[in-house]
């Protein structure tokens, strides 16, 4: 009886494992996080939500300077009317932080996208095929990486003379490609020696298919983990540009520009510097925390391969 049942079971096709909905998987992952990671995740969700839906939230006009018309005070302390107070032009700091998140996140997202898509692809490709292509591409990457990043960025931004969000995102995005290429290549080199890649080659699978189905999917977790850390770096980089007056033109709010503009009054009032600085610190810290958590998870999975 048992023998019959066993034979029957073997002949039936194995059903694919039931994949849970995204929100369920996210909820499960969230529950597995430590408190620090949970707080970081919540902060990032709030920042992203604010940046995306700022126009629909009950916020004050981030650029309105009421003091010109005697309707507001400059550098006003936090209050019920102005949650984070006002800046040197009597603008609502809370609204400017929310709107300022847009610039930081758009720049970070574009840099991550450039890095993941272009850097990730080329890195995976050269790490897999190796040979002359690898030598040429990595030589180019090394040359770009040899330049001090901020100096190169300053030179490009100055040269272009146009500083809107698109240009800033594009320039930072371009400069993000080399590090991702390096990370992807390193992972691809390792993965291309794994048994499943060897097996695929042995059965005559086309190299492009191997790259697409075996290499890139296994490089991605490491790249995502790196992207979180890199995004934090990019936010600081954009902040540095803005602090130097070389990011998006005013009056578009950016955290770096807010800090730069408020520093001239730092002897008088602290909150116009404090709040945008805190927003940047918490965001960078959160990205690093979540990035570390992701890296730890991807390492576990890697070892399980």
């Amino acid at each position, binding site marked *: 009886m048992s023998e019959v049942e066993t034979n029957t079971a073997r002949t039936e096709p194995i059903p694919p494992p039931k994949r849970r909905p995204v929100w369920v998987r996210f909820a499960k992952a969230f529950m597995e996080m430590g408190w620090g990671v949970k707080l970081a995740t919540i902060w990032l969700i709030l920042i992203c939500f604010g940046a995306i839906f700022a126009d629909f939230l009950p916020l004050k006009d981030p*650029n*309105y*300077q009421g*003091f*010109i018309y005697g309707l507001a005070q*400059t550098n006003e302390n936090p209050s019920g009317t102005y949650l984070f107070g006002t800046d*040197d*032009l009597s603008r609502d700091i809370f609204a400017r932080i929310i709107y300022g998140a847009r610039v930081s996140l758009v720049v970070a997202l574009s840099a991550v996208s450039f890095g993941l898509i272009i850097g990730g692809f080329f890195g995976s490709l050269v790490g897999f095929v190796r040979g002359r292509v690898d030598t040429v591409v990595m030589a180019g990457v090394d040359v770009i990486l040899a330049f001090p990043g901020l100096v190169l960025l300053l030179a490009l931004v*100055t040269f272009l*003379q146009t*500083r809107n969000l698109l240009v800033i995102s594009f320039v930072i995005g371009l400069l993000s490609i080399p590090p991702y290429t390096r990370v992807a290549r390193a992972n691809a080199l390792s993965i291309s020696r794994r048994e499943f890649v060897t097996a695929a080659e042995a059965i005559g699978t086309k190299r492009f298919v191997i790259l697409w189905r075996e290499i890139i999917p296994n490089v991605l977790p490491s790249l995502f983990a790196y992207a979180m850390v890199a995004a934090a770096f990019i936010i600081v980089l954009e902040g540095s540009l803005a602090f*130097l*007056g*070389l990011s998006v*033109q*005013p*009056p578009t709010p950016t955290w770096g520009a807010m800090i*730069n*503009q408020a*520093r*001239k*009054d*730092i*002897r*008088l009032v602290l909150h116009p510097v404090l709040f945008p600085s805190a927003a940047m610190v918490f965001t960078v810290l959160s990205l690093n925390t979540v990035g570390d958590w992701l890296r730890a998870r991807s390492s576990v999975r890697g070892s399980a391969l």
Partner: protein
Amino acid sequence: MRVARKKTRGAVALLAASALVIAACGGDDSDSGPATTAAPQTSTTLDQQNTEIEENVDERVYGGQVIIGLEAESNGFRPWDDSCSTNCYNMSAAVFDKLLEYSASGEYVPWLATGYEPNETLDEWTVTLREGVTFHNGKAFNADIIVDMLPLQREGAGGSASITGSGLLDIEKVDEFTVKYILGRGNVSFPSFLERYGLGMVFDPEAAAADPVGFDSAPVGTGPFTLVKRDIDAETVLERNPNYWGTDSQGNQLPYLDRLVFRPIPDEGTRLDSVVSGTVDAMITLRQGTIRDARAASGIKLIEFQGNNTGGGMFNTASPPFDDVRVRRALVHANNQPAVIEALGGTGISASATQWYSPDSPWYSQKVADAWPKFDLAIATELLTEYVNDPARSDGLAVGSPIETTLSCPPDPTLIAAMQVVQQTWEATGLVKTELTSFDQATHINMALGDQHHAHCWRWADEGDNQSGLATFLAPPELSVLNFPNWSSELASASFALVQQAGSVLDFDTRYAAYEQIMLNIATEVPIWYSGHTAIAVAVVEELDGLVNWTTPDSSLGSGIRGGEVRWIGVWRTGS
């Protein structure tokens, strides 16, 4: 055509442009170029409560060292070649003597010269020189020195700019201690050139010619201090010249201090903190926000000065829609000066400007002040409505659509703040779209020189007589690269004729009437706009005295810290 012409004059223009702009545009301020005759200013020594305090001239003491924090490194010690800023004047006036000095009463009075006299047509100026003066290397000073300096001044950028500006053709030796400056045209403001860097500071021409580059680190002048160390961007050290010829009003030999140390400390806050903490003994600032902070600081003395120099901007009148006076007047009516000054941190420090002269200047006109367009959004909107609905509007945009402007300032936080205020008030009319841009100072200036500007932050007027500055500003654009707004209407031509007329007479009333009419013409067609007069301050430790009440050799009261230029020759340190 004009652009090409401007390019050929780029080098000279850059120097002169710096004169008008740099301080306003943040960062390092260049010399405002040669000033011209009388314009007395007030210098007031203030304590924390802004009450006037006296300097005790009976407690003058010898010895001691003063460390001075500067906004930027000085351009150099080569008067015939370098451009000179506030920082440069602080250092170079300690090493070189000027032929003339600017007095508290607004006159140019003798210093290394003993007198000067023009002819009737003001195109020959005879200057008598002081006898018994020697250079740091022991060489005697006489008329030959002045004559021998001229070839170097002709070749150098700074000198040649002054020669061009003053109309100087030649210098003749009359006797051992008398020279005659021969000009190509009458120039009432010529004495001002003998008080500035390019023509006025006396150096040893032989030493300069022998090693023009090395002269920067081994300058030879007749001044009260000699240079002992020149570590660019770090520290410049001067020591007392024991053989200096000058004495104070009581006959005591000058200078009082043994040593001056100049250190560039670019960050405003750090520089002020350095004085408060005693790391340095003195600092100079042209920033209203820093003056505000210095007023609140304890344990220091603050000496403030407010002169003609004013911030603001200009419209490129060759570029639509600024070629239409309705637009310009509308935007000036929409400019809320007190709000701009507040954004600059200057509320209670800097007064709103309406002309090239501060209320303390003898050239100031209340009539002009009354005529200057006041902040009034209703008038601004009315004028703009008229323009945008004009089928013949010059910018070629559709009738009824807002005008489009680009406003550019250098990327200094205070200027960026002020720029945003201007943008908001312009756009409050609902008929203006303003894009803000900012570029580094050199690019900002070059944009104006190359006619690539639209609405542009700029600085107007200087601390002396503005005759020369006005003449170059009002000259037709095809003749003068310094007519930055390209102002070329009938009123502009009439203004140019007036300034030429003013430059050929000594009579104050005639000149006053001419300048007043010019300022009225500017208020009518508004090729430029103003924010506030520039406040300048020197913050020093309490032990320093003698910054304000210094006197010239003929016992005239000096001009205090005019333009942030401290005469360290007259400063002493109590307790040294």
